[in-house]
């Protein structure tokens, strides 16, 4: 064992805690019911094993769900004492904590992300979102959002596959805390934790119809968004779909918040704490296999430290561990689907073709499942496609800058505006650059940090509206100050 990295023996998290049924229906009005649409399979992206079959919600199913949400809003949830709504949310938060391991394992099986991330990040944050919002339910008058904040009614929510349970929490918790009821459509490739969440709602004795889960693909999502009796639409996903949703609600009474794509710049100055900056770069683009809207997918490194940073980065990437998402030592899991893998490969090949230098550690990948190695493109120019288009995979594009102004200009030179990173030891520089960046979330000397109290959302084509914090409540309230 003298010069190769000490390989840890397999340390698999047991699957036995999870009990996946052979098939699932839809969760409408407090119970599981058969859908009227076709079923489709959901697979484990690490092995391509079929996990189960879920229903595809038809328009009729969506209609039923919205009707249930409306009834629950009018008769039960809307009139309920706010403190009681809070108590239900506290119950849900506590049950999520109790069943945390089960949720984490299921998330890794369905999504492909390493168990360490679902166990240490996704699920604890999801529970924290419910806990935080539970406390707001009876304190809205203090939130500084106007004199008499009222719920909008029924919220139609469509969430993506990259953080399935966390995105569910980001949508459902504030909606319920502010007095709305929801119809939620989880992503086609990752429905399972949402369906398990339905069980949690039952365990908490949540009144029927307050939360409805309708699984399906794009058509189901469209039905939810376009349903006439939905008051509020909340969407997280690609900018392309976000555009069509914005078009669809035009001229209606529906409120809309969108959390879309990004191409964040992670800016490293020459006085950055180098080891932590390298860690931050790695976290920024390889956390969750790069399937993160706010991923630091463009590294903007000051030219005078470029070689040193890249050498350190490559060395650090070599120590990442790829493989079985259920292995507790895995850092990089599987790509979520064959489609996504194809897209990543296509853009990467294009990157090489347009003249950037591709670097990947020489590594073995499993034959089955969807895998892509961490990849770094150096000598990338702002004009390259890989500097402009969201890859949504573990691919980092490296550009350089000479001065702070140039860093800001390059960082802002994008139609996206979700997030950015700044690495420097100098406080005033952090504040100055943060002020100049056109991004909704700026991380200084850290990256990819999330908290229920901290508002998250984008500028420009990364969307509008915020989730989390006091500001996140506004999207679900009438007569409140809209952000």
């Amino acid at each position, binding site marked *: 064992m003298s010069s190769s990295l000490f390989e840890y023996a397999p340390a698999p998290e047991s699957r036995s805690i999870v009990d996946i049924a052979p098939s699932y229906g839809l969760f409408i009005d407090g119970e599981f019911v058969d859908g009227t649409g076709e079923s489709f399979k959901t697979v484990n992206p690490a092995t391509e094993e079929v996990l189960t079959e879920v229903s595809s919600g038809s328009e009729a199913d969506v209609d039923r769900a919205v009707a249930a949400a409306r009834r629950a809003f009018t008769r039960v949830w809307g009139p309920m004492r706010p403190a009681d709504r809070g108590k239900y949310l506290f119950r849900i938060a506590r049950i999520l904590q109790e069943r945390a391991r089960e949720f984490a394992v299921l998330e890794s099986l369905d999504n492909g992300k390493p168990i360490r991330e679902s166990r240490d990040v996704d699920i604890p944050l999801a529970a924290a979102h419910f806990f935080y919002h539970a406390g707001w339910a009876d304190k809205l008058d203090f939130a500084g959002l106007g004199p008499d904040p009222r719920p909008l009614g029924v919220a139609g929510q469509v969430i993506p596959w990259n953080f399935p349970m966390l995105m569910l929490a980001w949508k459902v918790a504030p909606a319920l805390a502010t007095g709305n009821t929801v119809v939620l459509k989880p992503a086609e490739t990752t429905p399972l934790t949402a369906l398990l969440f339905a069980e949690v709602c039952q365990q908490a004795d949540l009144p029927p119809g307050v939360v409805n889960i309708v699984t399906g693909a794009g058509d189901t999502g469209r039905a939810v968004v376009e349903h006439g009796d939905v008051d509020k639409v909340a969407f997280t996903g690609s900018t392309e779909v976000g555009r069509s949703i914005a078009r669809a609600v035009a001229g209606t009474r529906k409120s809309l918040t969108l959390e879309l794509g990004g191409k964040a710049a992670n800016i490293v100055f020459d006085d950055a704490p180098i080891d932590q900056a390298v860690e931050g770069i790695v976290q920024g683009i390889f956390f969750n296999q790069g399937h993160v809207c706010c991923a630091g997918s463009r590294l903007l490194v000051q030219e005078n430290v470029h070689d040193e940073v890249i050498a350190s980065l490559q060395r650090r990437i070599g120590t990442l561990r790829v493989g079985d998402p259920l292995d507790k030592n895995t850092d990089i899991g599987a790509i979520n689907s064959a489609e996504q893998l194809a897209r990543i490969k296509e853009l990467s090949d294009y990157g090489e073709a347009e003249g950037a230098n591709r670097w990947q550690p020489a590594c073995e990948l499993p034959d089955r499942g969807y895998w892509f190695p961490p990849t770094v493109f150096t000598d990338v120019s702002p004009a390259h496609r890989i500097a402009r288009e969201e890859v949504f995979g573990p691919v980092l594009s490296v550009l350089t800058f000479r001065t702070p102004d140039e860093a800001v200009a390059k960082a802002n030179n994008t139609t996206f505006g979700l997030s950015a990173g700044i690495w420097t030891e100098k406080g*005033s520089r952090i504040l100055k650059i943060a002020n100049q960046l056109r991004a909704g979330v700026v991380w200084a000397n850290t990256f990819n940090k999330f908290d229920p*109290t901290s508002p998250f959302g984008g500028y420009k084509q990364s969307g509008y509206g915020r989730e989390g914090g006091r500001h996140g409540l506004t999207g679900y309230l009438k007569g409140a100050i809209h952000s």
Partner: protein
Amino acid sequence: MSDRLAVRKTYKLYVNGAFPRSESGRSYEVVDHKGHFLANAAWASRKDARDAVVAARGAFGTWSAMTAYNRGQVLYRVAEVMEGRHVQFCEEVAAGEGLSSSKARAAVDAAIDRWVWYAGWTDKLAAVLGGANPVAGPYFDFSMPEATGVVAVLAPQQSSLLGLVSVLAPVLAGGNTAVVVTSKERPLPAVTLGEVLATSDVPGGVVNLLTGDSVELGPWLAEHADVDGIDLTGAPTGRAMEFEREAAGTIKRVVRPPAAEPDWTADPGLSRMTPFLETKTVWHPIGV
């Protein structure tokens, strides 16, 4: 009706996470609203108060340094455990205050719900009471609330659980630690609350409950140089002004008692948290 002889509870002080008797060895009789004997409660001395302040100061570093989320979870857990003691609390409140069982139940329900209300505040105070200040210069300027420190609380004399919770929970929600002098004549629910706190992940010393007389302990706490704030709600009639003057000697933050025992079911808003929160404002230049 069983012939079984009950095992009766002993009611001691709750200081630094433990249940000691008073160092003075004294106790006093607690009777119900009809004058019948209920229990002997420990009669806290000024030295017990002194020890409680030391404990509260010792615990302050830990309690205020926990994340707000963590404190919120601990306080919510207290409510969970209170719920489990519902029957015991109802009996003690009914006996001590002379309430019917349905009124006692309403008071206990309200006390638990009040505690849940405050548990949900811990991670929202900074957003509601703090913020960025748009100063007229190239500076990032922000203000944030911070816990004051050790707060002495003279708990209401009449409302032995709901009133107690209403003065104690807000102090804790802000990150302070507390030394509480309970209602003299109705101290038993407070001791049971101490038992709840001891079993709810609340670090020892964060809350200290002294059963005894605010006539005796009030002046010592009001003058104590290591107590940062004092809530005079349960001060003996006519003595509050004197205590306030004593507290002035160390510029303590003071909450005056109301003219009469208030309706504790009313919405408290922020009014019992803000007196024991400092505001820190920080400036930093903005420039490359």
